[in-house]
């Protein structure tokens, strides 16, 4: 599904990623953990195609093609989805309008027919129910005046609608209270599928208690320092990043 080899990236001449190697197979959930400033969010942004990051070395192969050559929208069409740590407000644009435009843009490039208004509404209602979101959400402006938790739920709602092949979830658990964390976590779990992979970027173990990853990687200073199974997350929680790094 995804192969990252020796990936180096910088922003404003400051190196952030210093040789990432990672392989994700179809159906796997990988968690990237690490202290603030370790490069976790940079990794997901680079994979989604944000152009303020400059890739200086290495390669990323996604489903056999060179991912780094693709524009962000082309990556979306190819099935990559990024859930933002800080979802962006689009004043004046209704959420339902964005959702419908996004779904149909992706469908178009997958050779699927455009969803009619009625079909779309039926689909989105189904997903709203899963995310325990009120239909009023559809008629509010994109992320405008949303609480932190509402924004994250809205991201996972989009993921449900877009049905990506590779989901990059950047700090999706931050800013969530216990109840919202559960809803979001279960929303992610519902998406687990033998044909779908997930890269979870997080600072804490709490989301991982709900979304059990197959692999856990510790990212520090732009490199993956340690990889393991779920027990590594538990160890991190006990010992902290400093303990791990010292070891």
């Amino acid at each position, binding site marked *: 599904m995804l192969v990252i080899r020796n990936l180096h990236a910088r922003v404003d001449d400051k190196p952030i990623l210093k040789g990432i190697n990672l392989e994700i197979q179809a159906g796997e959930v990988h968690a990237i953990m690490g202290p603030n400033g370790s490069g976790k969010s940079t990794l997901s942004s680079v994979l989604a195609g944000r152009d303020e990051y400059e890739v200086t070395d290495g390669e990323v192969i996604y489903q056999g093609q060179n991912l780094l050559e693709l524009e*962000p929208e082309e990556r979306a069409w190819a099935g990559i989805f990024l859930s933002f740590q800080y979802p962006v407000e689009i004043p004046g*644009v209704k959420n339902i309008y964005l959702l419908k435009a996004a779904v149909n843009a992706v469908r178009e490039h997958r050779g699927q027919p455009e969803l009619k208004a009625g079909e779309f509404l039926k689909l989105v209602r189904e997903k709203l129910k899963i995310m325990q979101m009120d239909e009023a959400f559809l008629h509010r402006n994109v992320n405008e005046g949303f609480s932190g938790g509402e924004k994250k739920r809205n991201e996972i709602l989009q993921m449900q609608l877009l049905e990506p092949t590779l989901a990059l979830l950047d700090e999706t658990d931050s800013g969530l209270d216990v109840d919202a964390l559960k809803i979001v976590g279960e929303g992610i779990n519902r998406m687990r599928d033998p044909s779908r992979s997930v890269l979870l970027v997080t600072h804490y173990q709490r989301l991982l208690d709900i979304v059990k990853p197959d692999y856990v990687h510790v990212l520090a200073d732009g490199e993956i320092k340690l990889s393991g199974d779920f027990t590594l997350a538990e160890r991190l929680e006990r010992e902290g990043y400093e303990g791990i790094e010292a070891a």
Partner: protein
Amino acid sequence: MSNQDIDQLVDQDYKYGFVTDIESDTLPPGLNEDVIREISKRKGEPEWLLEWRLEAYHKWLQMTPPDWAHLEYPAIDFQTMSYFSAPKNKDDAPKSLDEVDPALIETYNKLGIPLEEQKMLAGVAVDAVFDSVSVVTTFKEKLHEAGVVFCPLSEAVHSHPELVKEYLGSIVPQNDNYFAALNSAVFSDGSFVYIPKGVTCPMELSTYFRINQQNTGQFERTLIIAEDSSYVSYLEGCTAPQRDENQLHAAVVELVAMDDAEIKYSTVQNWFAGDDEGKGGIYNFVTKRGECRGDRSKISWTQLETGSAITWKYPSCVLKGADSVGEFYSVAVAGKKQQADTGTKMIHIGPRTRSTIISKGISTARGQNAYRGLVKVLPGATDARNFTQCDSLLIGDQCGAHTFPYVEAAEPSANLEHEATTSKVSDDQLFYLRTRGMSEEDALNMVVNGFCKDVFQKLPMEFAVEAEALLGITLEGAVG
């Protein structure tokens, strides 16, 4: 996305740049008393109107061009322009579309407004102005039944002289400003609308303007009178062919609403903006003013301004009647090297008068966009209220947005609110939408349309669609 990319994105060639080959009957360039006499003679005007023109001309000679606007342009040489041009077969004016010069129809087809189709579009009457003389007027029958008068001003001078005499220049006086004085002296033609007492105009009235004559100034003059308890919605849209030399457009629009009357005036303006250096674009100096003369009357201006090299335009409301309402909803786009200085004036005179101003300025490339608005509350306008919201959106980093709000309140019971914001289309917004599968262009369009939504939803339905499409065309271009 780099700024260069953004510039490319917002850059595009003028879609409607072409010229129709029609022989014109054009006066030689220059302006003097004889020219004005000739204009009046060719239009077969009565003596009083010639006198009125000459009076305005002499006032204009005493005036100087305004220099307070946030605009830079070379001084206009009024002697190099021609002040009259008419399609040649004016005397035997066409009775139906079949009689119209095929080249004209072709022009409308290129513009996407074929009259054949327009005729069928239920509820829309078209008074098409080609250069200076109206050549086609449709839907007259239906309007006639309702008692509505909708005709070229030049025709109304003969058919309804008492109305024209009474109202012409009564809202925008001859010497109101430099360009209004010039217009009063040489005005070419425009629409005249009269809605009798208690009549709701049975259709939206619309006029498409077009400049097609090199070096010909266009001086439209429109007059709309809404009697007690009447209602009219008037739509105005313009495009113009590509030209090398700057073309002056100095229109005057006068509206008057009596007791309980309402006038809704909507504009989509897409004059040629000039090339990337601003060369060849239209200079648009317009005076638009509505007077809410009657109690509980209402006038609203809604506009989308995307064209012209220079825009100088402040559609205003004079709120005389008690409880009268003035509204101004505007989206102004300045790209390329366009300069826009636009806004409104709300003059509160009557008690409990209310006004709303929603202004959205979009600046791209090297465009300069200024909002200039005056809210004035005179003594006696007790409990007057105004709400002003003035938002600027910047795309790229070579453009500018400027806000000049003026408030003069002489009435202590007045309640005035002003909100202003300036924002940039951020890389974050575009990236967010692109990760959702939208192209760069679609992403930009979505952000910009969201920004304009408050105004677009005030436009009549068919115009709102056109406005969104036009905005899309204005901002689109070769990406990457």
